[in-house]
């Protein structure tokens, strides 16, 4: 067992005041923590907005909020959840974990890293300040379809600028992650010995680098249309209304993978540790991730089958095809657990929640790939069910798997196990109660994004069930909050590797020192810690 001694960078001669330190830090760990706090805050805000949506829809012909307010609320719910929570929360985990997993002292460009983070809070403030301006916040949906978005109030401009800022944040962040993983891996860590979470962050970074500038161009055009008399998306001025959708979805479909791939990465770290086996088919998993990323660029128009303006068979076929690498991943996860020794600590429970729910999110997506079936389902609550089975059943469960898993590393304390189990079951049941009925509502013809529905529609019972489920999900945040507060009230007591894990972040102390590692083990496989525990590679 040989170790490599890591040269220690010189620290500051004088410790700075804590607040100044947090505001000016370029340490990837502190920035990661800032990302996590910020994004979990917006998760809470988006969640409150979701509760307002569900309250309004709980009964037919409700007037809890006005149509005007409703359109703002659901638009800002999705915008907060996608742009201010899910996408940057992966940057948070990535920031904290990626340099540690590859045995680096920091990200490649620490100052750019700080810039990436510090673009997020002002963007969030800008986006939400729409509620204070004349006409209210953005209300064209997170998809901002034009010409509708052309004609709305100034809240829309604030939304556009906020999303551009977030786009810059994730574009430069993506470059940073790529360089970090390409150039700063520990000795012996070839690309195909890199932890799977890093791989998913890498593919995500490539998608962000290629797709996000396209979104920025669409947003710039929309801004010009709105403020400088442009007509890119206005047919009355010679523009094309479908153009917006093409450009928007060219970004936003890969963005769906930006929102889920790192979650798959977290699951792929957790399952092997709690099954005490290596990830089944590591190489196949890496190629499946790349396959999803590549195919992700060829399916954007499946959001546009009912426009009558796209080549439906092609996009239908490619959309079906993307199920293949996704299936490979699912089977590899099952293969990982097969003949393993599975224990059910909180991180594992959330990972299993991901598996069982993301499976449904994958299956119900195939209905929309069958183009004629999509004619019936498109823009109904069936699609709302689908995205939530992917992004909540998938991504959000993965976020909590990651939080319970890395909490001991990041904060040196463990979250209470019983509270974790309580949170999981409340969330799992609440999630299904909220979103499963939406399949049936969609089949029954309930369009999405409607502020109210009539008494005659027959949609009331399922909507009420869904609303009860939403409040159950909200309740599940109580044990989580209690667990976090309780953990912070205890002293740091966690060993380097409380889970018998596999990857380098567990080699160093919990939490790690500023420079991350005093020494590193030699890396002979994708599981250097397993090798160290069991006497060398070859298992």
């Amino acid at each position, binding site marked *: 067992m040989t170790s490599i001694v890591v040269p220690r960078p010189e620290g500051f001669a004088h410790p700075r005041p804590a607040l100044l330190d947090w505001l000016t830090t370029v340490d990837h760990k502190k920035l990661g923590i800032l990302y996590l706090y910020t994004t979990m805050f917006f998760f809470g805000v988006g969640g409150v907005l979701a509760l307002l949506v569900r309250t309004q829809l709980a009964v037919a012909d409700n007037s809890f909020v006005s149509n005007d307010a409703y359109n703002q609320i659901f638009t800002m719910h999705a915008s907060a959840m996608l742009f201010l929570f899910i996408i940057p929360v992966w940057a948070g985990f990535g920031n904290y974990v990626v340099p540690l997993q590859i045995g680096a002292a920091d990200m490649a460009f620490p100052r750019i890293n700080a810039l990436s983070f510090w673009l997020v809070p002002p963007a969030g403030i800008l986006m939400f300040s729409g509620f204070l301006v004349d006409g209210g916040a953005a209300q064209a949906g997170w998809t901002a379809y034009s010409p509708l978005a052309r004609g709305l109030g100034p809240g829309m401009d604030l939304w556009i600028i906020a999303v551009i800022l977030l786009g810059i944040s994730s574009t430069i962040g993506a470059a940073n992650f790529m360089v970090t993983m390409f150039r700063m891996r520990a000795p012996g860590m070839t690309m195909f010995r890199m932890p799977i979470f890093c791989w998913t962050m890498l593919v995500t970074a490539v998608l962000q680098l290629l797709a996000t500038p396209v979104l920025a161009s669409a947003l710039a055009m929309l801004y010009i249309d709105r403020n400088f008399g442009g007509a890119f998306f206005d047919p009355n001025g010679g523009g094309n209304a479908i153009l917006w959708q093409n450009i928007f979805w060219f970004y936003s479909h890969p963005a769906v993978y930006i929102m889920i791939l790192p979650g798959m990465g977290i699951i792929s770290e957790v399952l092997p540790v709690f099954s005490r086996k290596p990830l*089944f088919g590591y190489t196949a998993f890496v190629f499946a991730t790349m396959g999803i990323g590549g195919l992700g660029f060829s399916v954007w128009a499946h959001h546009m089958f009912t*426009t009558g303006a796209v080549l439906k068979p092609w996009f239908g076929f490619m959309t079906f095809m993307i199920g293949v690498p996704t299936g490979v991943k699912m*089977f590899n996860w099952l293969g990982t657990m097969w*003949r393993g020794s599975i224990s*059910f600590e909180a991180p594992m429970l959330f990972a299993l929640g991901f598996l069982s729910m993301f499976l449904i999110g994958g299956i119900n997506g195939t209905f929309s790939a069958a183009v*004629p079936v999509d004619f*019936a389902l498109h823009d109904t609550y069936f699609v709302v069910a689908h995205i939530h089975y992917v992004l909540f059943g998938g991504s959000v469960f993965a976020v909590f798997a990651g939080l319970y898993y890395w909490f001991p590393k990041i904060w040196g304390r463990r979250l209470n196990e019983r509270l974790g189990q309580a949170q999981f079951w409340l969330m799992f049941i609440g999630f299904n109660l909220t979103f499963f009925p939406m399949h049936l509502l969609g089949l029954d*013809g309930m369009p999405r994004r409607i502020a109210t*529905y009539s008494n005659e529609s027959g949609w009331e019972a399922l909507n009420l069930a869904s609303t009860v489920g939403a409040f159950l999900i909200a309740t599940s945040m109580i044990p989580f909050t209690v667990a976090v507060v309780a953990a912070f009230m205890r002293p740091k007591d966690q060993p380097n590797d409380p889970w018998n894990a596999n990857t380098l972040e567990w080699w160093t102390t919990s939490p790690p020192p500023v420079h991350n590692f005093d020494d590193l083990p030699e890396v002979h496989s994708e599981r250097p810690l397993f090798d160290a525990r069991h006497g060398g590679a070859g298992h």
Partner: protein
Amino acid sequence: MAVTGMRRHVRRSLLLVTVALFALASIGVASAQVGTPKPITDEARKIEDLWIFTLALAAVVFVVVEGALIYALVRFRKRNDELPAQTHGSTVLEFVWTGIPVLIVIALFTYSFIVLRDVENTAAAEDMTIEVQGFQFQWQFTYQLNDLGVNSDPAASGEISVIGTAAEEPTLVIPIDEPIEFRLLSNDVIHSFYIRDFLYKLDVVPGRDNRFVITARETGDYFGQCAELCGLNHALMRFKLKVVTRDEFDLWVAEQTGGTGDSAVRRAD
């Protein structure tokens, strides 16, 4: 220690059974809903067949994978501290579980392609064209008097126009058993013309001339609604659909035109 272990075991098994029951109940509820909505056109019936085919495949995949997951959790839960065999993968298995989904995908695609072609086969000449104008926030349905299907008078001039208002939803009246074309137009923003029991919607896009043809096979009262967010009162862009016999349709036309054959505009207010 043994008792505690036993209790943990029982508790875990109970939880797992709960999950399993939940999953089964989900399938039960889902399959009970097959047949909702009620397909009332030739096209919708084909779409429903495709839906059932997809649902059947989906159910099989769901049961197999979710079943394997639950089986693994029960069968391979931790019993002792022994390290399980460290298998890293299997190329054969990777090919198998890449190959089988590819076959499923090809089957699904082929069938959906055939249905798509049938549904969009507008070569069968339509008997009449109804112009659907979507606007913020209602619909206008316009019939040309010289294009009312089998009983129309080619020499007639004028039109029937039904306009919805905020106060009253408009009613779209169509005859049964005749191919009818809908021509979708908008001058403001994008709307989507959606009738649940057609199992169909098509966007109403400014600057585009979107059309589709259906043949209704069942009389009755149905409903439709805008399915693309179009602004403030998007939720209120509802309309009624009445599928009637040819005789009833002719009567309705006569009523609209006051029996004169001249143009008439009826406001649904």
